[in-house]
Each structure stands twice: as structure tokens, then as C-alpha cells.
């Protein structure tokens, strides 16, 4: 309940406020709010839009893996010359009895302030100091001191020394008061299909629909496509191709180790392939923030450019939720589930593993998120700083690379609402474990090469469809009449090893594998039960917790995407809703799936 309340609040915050331009003159008073993600030159700082729904905005982060990153620079126009008090909205992401890891500074027109920033617990405002501006234009610079993930959401100037509020409740009200933004985005665009989330499932949905002649919008909040398979997260794709080998080969990865830089090669392939479709309108770096529904039908999805704050409204008769977290369904009021069902709910018992597999009583436990990372040998000795702030998590664990077992979940942490804390916990685990490994002389020349700052999630919200896919469907290999996705991969469910022994690191997981026959996912698990025009593809499809264990991997979710893309084309053809395809056009749908396996030879070449 508490989490839902929080999300509703944040959603309202989005609808009502949010600062969308790089500089907003707030009132007649001399005040100015500068969104950090809108800085003209971010330097080495990265834009992190992952936690907008929780903390209110994309932010800049100094992800230097221990080496300070280049300054972020912007110039701003002040309403008047004169004296201003300055605050930054920031957070110490590893608070404790040590120096904050992500300290940074701010300069204005070259003037450095004495106060180091990034030191307060929880997101809020830190006072920087005051400055007398004798010009209306000023140059701001964020200076990273540590390379360890300092973060800046916004810089606020005011002629009065009154800090903006920090409590989420009061901050929302404050932002609502100062926002000059109307509810409706100024720009609207119409499509046949709007796909939100450019992971493998979303890309496959967009391609399949585009190949059937639909005009598709693909909205994705990152600069590159692929989600967990992208070069930013680097999980390799698993599973079989099913009926969609031709499409999925445009998107999947080689079987390199998770975290491998080879992901960059597949990244180029994927981006090039999706961009080759003229009728896929690709919105990279756009993050959806609302889905407006009338009579259980989505009318449009609103999205915002993660850097500039520009907004757009995307209208369509059909929508695909491939956000992974089920955001479109959530905003639209779709039924969803989260956590582990009780063992009796669907009869998903596996006696050998008992509570670890499926609990007697339902709970909030889910499979965790991974943050992948790696290091490399170099010719010279490499230093790595002491990281005392990481040791409460890493303890004495030593490692030089991270694989899929680097995974974190805890029952007090929601994989959506607490994703930032989960990511930060993993960063502490990584930096601490690497620092421990560096104490071994054999690692003297080893250098941290790459650490993702994106949370690679396995499980979050699962939207409810007409059929909920379960472990029993997999075990029985049920051949549904509307089977459109197929898989041979074992059902594997993860748990944290700390549950079995408190001495284990809490960021390492174990997998339980159940060998099944070939199994099938019905089309009815790929559209919402109560939102009439919503498809879902990806880990947020209609499944139980254990049911997700097998088909959560990315070739399988890609099959889901391709399947809904084709279904959407039939919806358009007959002007019907997703459910009607199952009820009235199933044979045509299955034939369409069969026919798309091979591209037709153009008439000119026949």
C-alpha cells in the first residue's frame, strides 16, 4: 500500500509539475531552477533517468569507477543580477561513518564554493553558498572529486535564503506550485501502434508490426536499444527463437560471457536493424511518464525527453507495454501482480526446494537485479582507492569480475520503487569486492574496466492477462491452441544465498533448475485482462512468479514481442481489440505467424 501511494504521488507529481526546460524562471522573485540533466555539456557525467518515478527527475551522475570524471558545464540566464543563494539537489548514496563516496563541487563563473556536495542522506537540497552575480549570464560547472557516483539532480538559485523542501510530500507541493507546465504536452503524434520499452521484446514488437505495414512509435529511455541485452547492461540472450528466428536474429546476442564488451558488436547490429525500418519512429532517450485511459482503453502515452525535458503525447489505437516494469499497464490501471504467490495458489510446488521455490504463504520476494562489471589486466601497476563506504556490503568478499550470480533482492526492497538503492547496493558490492581483490599482489596490474550503472532486472510487475502462465503450464508442456511462444529452457528460479547462511554475501544468488519438456506460452498471456487495447511483452507478461523462471530470458521475451506485433496488425486490419484476435481471428493469426518466417520474394525477382 505504501509503495502504491508513493507511486501515485510521484505520478501525480509528473502530471502536475516537473521542470521541463533547462531553466525555469520561477516567479517574480529572483529564483532559478536548473535541471542538471539539461547541462549543455555533461562532460564525463552520465544522465541517469532510471529512478524518475521515485525521486522525481533524471539526474547527472559521475560514474567514473574511481577516477573523477570531466566537468559538466552549462550556461544559464538569470532574471536579474545580484546576490543569490545556491542549493543543489543531491544525495549521499552510501551514507555512514566515512567520507561520502560521491563528493563534488560547483563553480559559478569560475568561483569555487567551499562546501563539498553530495553528503546528505536521502535526496534533498544541500546549501552550496551565496554569490553576487554582476552579469545575467553565468557559467555553471559540476566538478567531480571522487569518480564514485556523485549525483546532482538540480541547482536552485534564490535571492532569499530559504531552502526548498526535502520531504517528498512537501517537495511535490513545492514543485506543483512553481511549475508553469500545462498537463497536456504541447506536441501530439498519431501512430498505429505505440511500443514503450526498447528491450528485445519491444524491438521485436516494433519490427513485426512495421513489417505488416503499421506506423509504429518505439519509445525507449536509453540512447541504445536492447535493454538488458544492450551494451549498457550486457546480459547475453538465452532461449530459442521459436517462430521468429528471422526477426530475433536481428536483435539477439552471441553467447559471450555476461558483461562482455562484445555486447557492443551486437548493439550496432540491433540499432542498425531497427533503424532500417522506415515506419518505426524511434524515440531514443524518451521516457514515458503516463498512460491516459478512458473506459479501460488507453488513449495516449505521454513521454519526456530525458535531457531536454521536451514532452510529447503519443496517440494510437493499440499499445505495447514492454517496459519490463509494466509501467504503461500500471498507469492505465491494468491488473498486475508482484512477488511470490503462495504454493497453493497455482499448485507450483517443488518439494525438493520447498520454500525457496514457492512459499506456503505469499510474500514480496522476487528474483533480484544484476549489475554486471569487469576488470582487465594491464601492463602497469594500477591503483584503486580505499572504499570504506563499500565494506559494510562487500565485507571480505574478493572478486575481479561479475557474472549473473551478482544479483540482489531483499524482501523490504521493491525492484521498482527501490531500484536506486538496489543499484547502489550493487555498486558498493562491486567496488568493495574489487578493492579487496586489489590487495592481492597478483592483481596489482588489474584495472576496473567497466561497471554498469543500469539495473538489470529479472522480475518486477507482471501484468495480468486472460491467461496466467504458470510453472504447471511449463511442466505439462501444455499445447495451447493459441501457443505463439515456445521454449525449451529449464525453469530456473533464483534466490539469495544469504537466506541459507547469514555469512554469505547478500549480493550473490543461486539458481534452481527444473527440467521441463518443451513448453508454450499462449497469446492470451500477452494482452491485458482489463485494459482493452494493451499488449504486453517481456518480463511483465502475464505469469506467476515461478512461471516467469523459464521464459524471462530475452529470446523468449523477443518471441512475445514479435507475436504481439503481428497480433496488433490484425487488430488494425479488422479494427478489433487484442482479445478479439484470439476469439475471432486465431487461425489467421497463426497463419500470419507461419507466413512471416520467411520474407516473400519480391515480385520483380519471381
Amino acid at each position, binding site marked *: 500500500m505504501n509503495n502504491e501511494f508513493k507511486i501515485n504521488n510521484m505520478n501525480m507529481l509528473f502530471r502536475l509539475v516537473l521542470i521541463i526546460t533547462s531553466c525555469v524562471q520561477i516567479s517574480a522573485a529572483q529564483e532559478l531552477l536548473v535541471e542538471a540533466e539539461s547541462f549543455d555539456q555533461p562532460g564525463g557525467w552520465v544522465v541517469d533517468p532510471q529512478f524518475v518515478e521515485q525521486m522525481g527527475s533524471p539526474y547527472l551522475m559521475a560514474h567514473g569507477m574511481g577516477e573523477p570524471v570531466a566537468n559538466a558545464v552549462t550556461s544559464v540566464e538569470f532574471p536579474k543580477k545580484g546576490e543569490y543563494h545556491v542549493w543543489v539537489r543531491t544525495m549521499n548514496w552510501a551514507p555512514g561513518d566515512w567520507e561520502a563516496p560521491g563528493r563534488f563541487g560547483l563553480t559559478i563563473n569560475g568561483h569555487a564554493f567551499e562546501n563539498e556536495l553530495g553528503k546528505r542522506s536521502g535526496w534533498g537540497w544541500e546549501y552550496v553558498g551565496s554569490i553576487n552575480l554582476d552579469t545575467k549570464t553565468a557559467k555553471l560547472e559540476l566538478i567531480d572529486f571522487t569518480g564514485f557516483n556523485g549525483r546532482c539532480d538540480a541547482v536552485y538559485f534564490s535571492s532569499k535564503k530559504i531552502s526548498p523542501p526535502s520531504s517528498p510530500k512537501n517537495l511535490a507541493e513545492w514543485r506543483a506550485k512553481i511549475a508553469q507546465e500545462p498537463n497536456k504536452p504541447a506536441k501530439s503524434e498519431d501512430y498505429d501502434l505505440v511500443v514503450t520499452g526498447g528491450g528485445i521484446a519491444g524491438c521485436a514488437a516494433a519490427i513485426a508490426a512495421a513489417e505488416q505495414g503499421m506506423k509504429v512509435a518505439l519509445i525507449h529511455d536509453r540512447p541504445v536499444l536492447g535493454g538488458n541485452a544492450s551494451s549498457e547492461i550486457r546480459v547475453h540472450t538465452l532461449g530459442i527463437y521459436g517462430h521468429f528466428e528471422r526477426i530475433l536474429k536481428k536483435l539477439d546476442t552471441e553467447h559471450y560471457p555476461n558483461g562482455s564488451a562484445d555486447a557492443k558488436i551486437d548493439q550496432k547490429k540491433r540499432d542498425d536493424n531497427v533503424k532500417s525500418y522506415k515506419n518505426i519512429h524511434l524515440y531514443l532517450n524518451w521516457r514515458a511518464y503516463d498512460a491516459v485511459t478512458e473506459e479501460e482503453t488507453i488513449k495516449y502515452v505521454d513521454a519526456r525527453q530525458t535531457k531536454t525535458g521536451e514532452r510529447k503525447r503519443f496517440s494510437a489505437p493499440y499499445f505495447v507495454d514492454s517496459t519490463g516494469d509494466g509501467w504503461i499497464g500500471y498507469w492505465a490501471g491494468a491488473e498486475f501482480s508482484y512477488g511470490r504467490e503462495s504454493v497453493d495458489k497455482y499448485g507450483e510446488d517443488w518439494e525438493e526446494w520447498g520454500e525457496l521455490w514457492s512459499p506456503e504463504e505469499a*510474500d514480496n520476494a522476487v528474483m533480484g537485479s544484476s549489475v554486471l562489471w569487469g576488470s582487465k589486466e594491464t601492463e602497469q601497476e594500477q591503483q584503486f582507492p580505499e572504499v570504506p563506504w563499500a565494506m559494510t556490503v562487500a565485507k571480505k568478499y574478493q572478486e575481479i569480475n561479475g557474472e549473473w550470480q551478482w544479483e540482489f533482492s*531483499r524482501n523490504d526492497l521493491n525492484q521498482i520503487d527501490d531500484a536506486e538503492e538496489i543499484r547502489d547496493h550493487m555498486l558498493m558490492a562491486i567496488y568493495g569486492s574489487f578493492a579487496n581483490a586489489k590487495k592481492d599482489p597478483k592483481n596489482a596490474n588489474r584495472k576496473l574496466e567497466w561497471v554498469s550503472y543500469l539495473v538489470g532486472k529479472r522480475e518486477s510487475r507482471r501484468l495480468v492477462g486472460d491467461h496466467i502462465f504458470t510453472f504447471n503450464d511449463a511442466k505439462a508442456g501444455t499445447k495451447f491452441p493459441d501457443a505463439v511462444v515456445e521454449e525449451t529452457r529449464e525453469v530456473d528460479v533464483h534466490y539469495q544465498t544469504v537466506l541459507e*547462511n547469514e555469512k554469505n554475501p547478500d549480493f550473490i544468488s543461486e539458481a534452481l533448475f527444473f527440467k521441463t519438456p518443451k513448453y508454450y506460452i499462449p497469446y492470451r498471456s500477452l494482452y491485458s485482462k482489463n485494459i482493452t487495447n494493451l499488449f504486453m511483452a517481456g518480463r511483465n507478461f502475464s505469469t506467476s512468479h515461478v512461471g516467469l523462471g523459464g521464459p524471462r530470458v530475452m529470446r523468449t521475451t523477443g518471441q512475445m514481442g514479435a507475436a504481439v506485433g503481428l497480433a496488433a496488425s490484425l487488430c488494425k486490419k479488422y479494427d478489433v481489440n487484442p482479445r478479439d484476435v484470439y476469439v475471432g481471428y486465431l487461425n489467421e493469426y497463426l497463419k500470419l505467424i507461419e507466413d512471416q518466417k520467411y520474407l516473400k520474394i519480391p515480385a520483380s525477382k519471381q
Partner: protein
Amino acid sequence: MKLIAVIFFFAVHMSWSQFDRVNSFSNNKWAGGQQLEKPQFFILPWQPGTQLVEKETNLSIKVDSLGLKPVKALQDSSGTIIIYVSDISTPVCADGDCRLMDIRFYWTLLGGYAGFDSYQQSPLTKHDHDEFVYADYLKLHQLLLDDNSILKRRKVDELVKKPQVSENENVDAVAGATIKEVKESVVSGALYSCYTAWHIVHGVVKNQIRELTVKGLSEDQLVSMLSVDNPDYQIFVLKRFSKAQYEKNYKQIAAIFKDGIPLVRSYIVKNVPSSFWENETLQTPFWNCFSDLDINSRSLLLEKIAMAPLTIIYELSKNLGVMTKNQLKQYLNHLSNTKGIDKVLIESLKSFADDPNETYNYLVDNFLEDYVE
């Protein structure tokens, strides 16, 4: 070449079997059908002076080319079965080089791995015929303790060469990770021995022993199993306890909650009858160990906070520092719905909010700002 080696092995084995091998199997820990000492590697408690007597069962383990090895029960002087045991002699072959592995395995009443003994006259050896040293035996013990070892899902041939990459790759792992995991878990130079041992211990006999126990289970045995410090036993018993048995054994259950592994604690807090949370006496022992619990168990306990008496709520205010962010939010959320919070508690919250060393002091500060001030 391999064929010759195998033939040679069986020739040797045939000649061995001409002799009575009892001598090589003897050990002063067990003689004449009695277990007199704690096994060398053992996970269950063993009281000094314990003497267990072997009893035949109808269970046996099929060993490659050497037939069936009986599984025996070991019972105490009262006739209660404590563990199961089998003396195993099995060929282990690698690259055509075959040797016998002699080892005495022990299982719990639920078929879980309990431990092993090696034979003084027939120590385990590695591929290069070096004898196991203590660290090797310990590593084998650790491997056998892992009932979800990577050895479970792989054929032994797959473990000695780089796994083939295929489109039908069935594990959420990669070649490199697999090789690393195998290397870390098996005794160096003794992969085949480890593999063979693991699959005997965790083979079909596991379920057979469990079924045997379930079949002959009495209430007394159920209660006595609860007193054994073993997570499998604890959950097995708690799953079978009635409401009355939960209440009758609440002190024992609270003690397990305090000292058990997180998985067992979670089970307890989620599954004790609702009467526990309606009764101050029954629930207080659980809250008393709040600060010593793992985070997951603490979270589950906090889900019962609405039913906790005010004394517990006040007591918890002394433990705000051990709470995670969301646990603290949950506690404060409960406070915001609680009437009659006294000034002492408010002062305690203020002092927490003002403490710069408290990571989540700002949450309490926000709470005071929103609900109190």
C-alpha cells in the same frame, strides 16, 4: 587403450574380491555393527558417549559394476533412528584409469547429506594417485553439502572440456562461469571422485530415506527432530505441526527463530498460527530478538507490527538504527496510525533525527515534520 585399462581394472577387482576386504573397511569408530564416534565430517550434533547400532533396511545403493551396497539405519539405545549410513566402494574412472573409492556416507533422517568417513587403510586419492590431504577431504565435504551443486546438472564429460555453445543453451550461465564454478567446488585433481561421490549422496537414495522416515514418523520423533539444529528438520517439523503443537512448543520455536538460518526464521514468522500475534506472551520472544535478526526476517516480523502491544512499539524505538530505510518507514507509518504516542517516544525520535551518525535520520525528521510538528 581405455578398453585395456578397464579390463585390467576389472581383473584387479575380481582378484580383490577373492579376498575378504573387511580389514580395509575396519575403523575403530565403528565396529561390530556399532558407530562409536562422531564421523570425521558430520553436520549433526553428536553427544560424547553416543553409541549407535546398525539396523538393516530394505534400501540399497547401486554401484557401478559392484552391485548393491546396503543402506543401514543407525539407532540409539532407545531404538530411535538417528541417521542412515552406507559403506560405499565404487570404481572411479578417468581417461581409462580406474581406481576404487572407499568411503562411508551418512544421511540425515530426511535423506540430506550428513557427513562421511574415509578409511584409514584406503584413503581417497586423486587422479595422479596422490592421497587426499585434510583440506581435500574438507573440500569434498563442502561440495557434498551443496545439494544444488553445478555437478547436479552436468554430465561429467561436460565438466572436463569447455562446454559447447548452442542455441539451446539451457543455463543462465556461460562457459567461463561454469568452468570457474566447477574449479572452485571440486577437489583439484579429483573431479571424477567428487562427481561420483556427489551423485551417490544426492541420488535416488535421498528420497528413499525421506520416505522411510515419513512412513514411520511418530509425534515424539517429530518433537525430537525439532530440537536438532538442522534447518531441514526444523522446516519439516514446522510444516507438520498443528496449532496446538505450535503453542505447546513456542519457547523452542522462538529459540529457533532467534538462532536459526534466515530461511527458517522467515518460515516461522510467516506460518506461526495467528494466535501468536494475538497473545503478548507468545509474540514477545520474537520481538525481543529483533535487533539480532537478518534483514528479511526483520521485515517479515514488522509486517505483524499492527498486532504488537504498545510496549513492543516503544521498545522498537530503541532499535531504529538497525532498521533499513523501508523498515523505518514502515515503523513510522505505524506510528502515524497509532494514537496516544507519549512524549518520551517523541523525544526519542527527535534525538534519532538529530543524530548525524544515523543514516536515515532524515526520515524521522520528515515524519516529525509531517505528523507531529
